[in-house]
């Protein structure tokens, strides 16, 4: 009677799995993803090309030549920067999914100076001003939902998400209105060359900025009082209150920092990669970087590896599309499978499955 009610599969929390075992599961998940992706490619690729060769194309496409590596790094820079930005919020369990909008806000502020201040101040100073303006604008844009959350406990997930659409709408208005170049074109002209981010080793110097940020954020999160406060709030808001922390203030401060970094990324993308402003400036980075942050378990150094991995996939898939003329969506599917498997495997690391044993009393041993 009792055994009838036992479900076929049950879940149990597991703790204390050794590190190597966890990493084995993670590697296995990547393997599974590659096999599944290979199956998809077998269906999609033209006759005569096999999935292994296709994976080879992805790797060489992303890392095979100097130009390819530069392009790959260019994709990784905003991903890494933005993952660093949202990490403190997520650590605090403040679900900031508005990085997209904060990037855009930063890009708008930077673009304003790039478009209207050229010639008024020396260009090096102007680039610094653009970066600062981007950071402040991004920070303020993020501060709004944080303020409402602290004051009236509004839902930050919805709030930050909605803020994205507002700021992207603002860019559309600027594109067709006050900042439009050729009448009717809906295109903001390119910035003057003097305010383009200088290139170092063939890629705009944004990569140096984000690498510095990696170290800074690592120290901030792990070795400062503020970082500790964030961790405490993430574990338990009540504990934080009991310890006398001003939770609202810390939330707003953290969101401002988060938004400021996103805004800085917006500046890097606008001034370094695009050299102009358009509504797609964030290009989904604000969302993809959530995956980067999660996969890295909010570890700043792991983010470098994960963002590079995603960039390799994205650039490599682009080459795959060029070389084999597969639909661009195939690359999205493969990336999706990989992310799904990698995020999904965390489930098996944290829980274990218990199958019902026939004829035995359930859960006797495991």
């Amino acid at each position, binding site marked *: 009677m009792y055994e009838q009610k036992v479900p076929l599969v049950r879940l149990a929390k597991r703790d204390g799995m050794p590190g190597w075992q966890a990493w084995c599961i993670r590697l296995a998940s990547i393997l599974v993803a590659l096999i599944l992706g290979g199956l998809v490619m077998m269906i*999609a*690729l033209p006759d005569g090309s096999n999935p292994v060769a296709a994976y080879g194309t992805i790797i060489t496409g992303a890392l095979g030549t100097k130009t*390819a590596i530069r*392009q790959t790094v260019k994709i990784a820079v905003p991903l890494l920067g933005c993952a660093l930005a949202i990490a403190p919020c997520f650590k605090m369990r403040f679900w900031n999914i508005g990085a997209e909008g904060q990037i855009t806000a930063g890009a708008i502020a930077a673009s304003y100076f790039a478009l209207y201040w050229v010639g008024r101040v020396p260009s090096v100073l102007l680039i610094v001003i653009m970066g600062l303006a981007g950071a402040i604008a991004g920070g303020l844009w993020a501060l709004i939902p944080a303020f409402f959350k602290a004051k009236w406990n509004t839902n930050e997930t919805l709030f930050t998400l909605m803020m994205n659409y507002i700021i992207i709408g603002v860019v559309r208005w600027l594109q067709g209105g006050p900042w439009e170049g050729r009448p009717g074109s809906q295109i903001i002209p390119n910035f003057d060359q003097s305010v383009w981010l200088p290139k170092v080793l063939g890629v705009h110097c944004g990569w140096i900025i984000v690498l510095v940020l990696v170290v800074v954020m690592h120290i901030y999160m792990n070795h400062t009082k503020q970082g500790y406060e964030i961790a405490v709030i993430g574990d338990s808001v009540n504990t934080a209150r009991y310890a006398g922390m001003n939770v609202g203030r810390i939330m707003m401060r953290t969101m401002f920092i988060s938004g400021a970094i996103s805004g800085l990324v917006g500046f890097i993308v606008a001034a370094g990669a695009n050299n102009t402003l358009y509504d797609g400036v964030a290009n989904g980075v604000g969302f993809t970087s959530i995956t980067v942050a999660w996969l890295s378990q909010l570890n700043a150094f792991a983010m470098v590896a994960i963002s590079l991995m995603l960039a390799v996939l994205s650039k490599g898939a682009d080459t795959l599309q*060029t070389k*084999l003329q597969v639909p*661009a969506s195939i690359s999205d599917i493969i990336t999706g499978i990989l992310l799904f498997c990698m995020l999904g495997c965390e489930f098996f690391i944290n829980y274990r499955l218990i199958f019902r044993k026939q004829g035995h009393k359930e859960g006797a041993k495991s």
Partner: protein
Amino acid sequence: MKKVLALLLALSMALALVACGGNSGGNSSSNSGGQTNNGGQTDDGGSSEGETKHIKVGMVCIGDENDQGYTYNFMRGVEGATEDLKAKGIEVEWVFKYNILENSGCEDANIELAEDGCQLIIDNSFGHEEFMLKVAPDYPDIQFVACTNQASWGDDLPNTHNAFANIYEGRYLAGVAAGMKLQQMIDDGEITADQAVIGYVGAYSFAEVISGFTSYFLGARSVCPSVTMKVQFVGSWSDATEEANAASALCDMGCVLISQHSDNTTPATTAQSKGAFHTGYNNDMTGVAPEASIIGTRIDWSVYFTHIIECVVNGEEFEQDWCKGLADGAVVLTPLNEAIAAPGTAEKLEEVEAAIKSGELNVFDTSTFTVDGAELTQAFALDTDGDYAADSEEAVFDGAFHESYFQSAPYFTIEIDGIEWLNSEY
């Protein structure tokens, strides 16, 4: 029972896999134009030219061929050029980057194609140019073309090019067909003379669009003197729903004929459902709206593609700014829908087409329109200082405004009498 079902399911999945695989294989081979193995076949055919020349051409497209409009029209040009060049012993291997918007993704696409070994790279949308220009200096041996834009004649990069066609000539002809229909309706007493109102769905108040609808209007008025026109801008080059809404609103305002400068076929279908007539752009729309769509006009890009690919293969230079029209086959009309066109339309079109080709008729003849009640006597063509206002080269001479004469990209941006702009904020 379950096992049988499972087996059946597995079997059907396996079959589906095979079917899918076969399908996509066929697709991609048709995509990449001519493969190298065709070289052997030409030898079999015993071509007198000797060996086949091979070239790899990249193309950055803002949409894909499924849009049935803008990019579809380019694909038809690609097919035409591939055929023409085959006859000349040139094998073209095309590499496409689809759905590349006018942003830095376009820069990446150009780099991608350049790295892939393309000798010629064509960007098909106006806004691609700025991003293409960031790539072109790094690859001086590759020729870059930005269709419909205009920087090349003024920049100092010898490997960049622009191209457009005198589409205003085709628009004028489509306007004549529309005007004939309206005049027929007036003569038959279906509408009064002042009810002959055309509704025009435009993308933006952009030179290319303004030039297009003005020429269209002048064509219509040349055969139906009482016609007027309302223009509704939708604020997008391609937004099927908004285009339909605009067409619907225009019909409600009393327009009895709809035309368009936007990428979708929804203005045609909306016109049909509202009982209005229609003329199209980019594509023959009589298929989707047989009771409404009278005729369409499109640019035949194969003429240009054949020309430049031949030049590149033979190591010759080609124009930095190219513009041809009806006379060279670069602008063509889609088949006339005889079932609904006014009687005599075909003959009239032939007559007008001949007049345009011979240069006897100039579309923007300044004696046929007025601006604020006065004849147009002065208008500049080119913008030389980058402030987006034309400041050089007088376009009005010999009794006409000379469109696409100083550069390929259209520069007629004047609001003439008889055309009402409903929302010029776009």
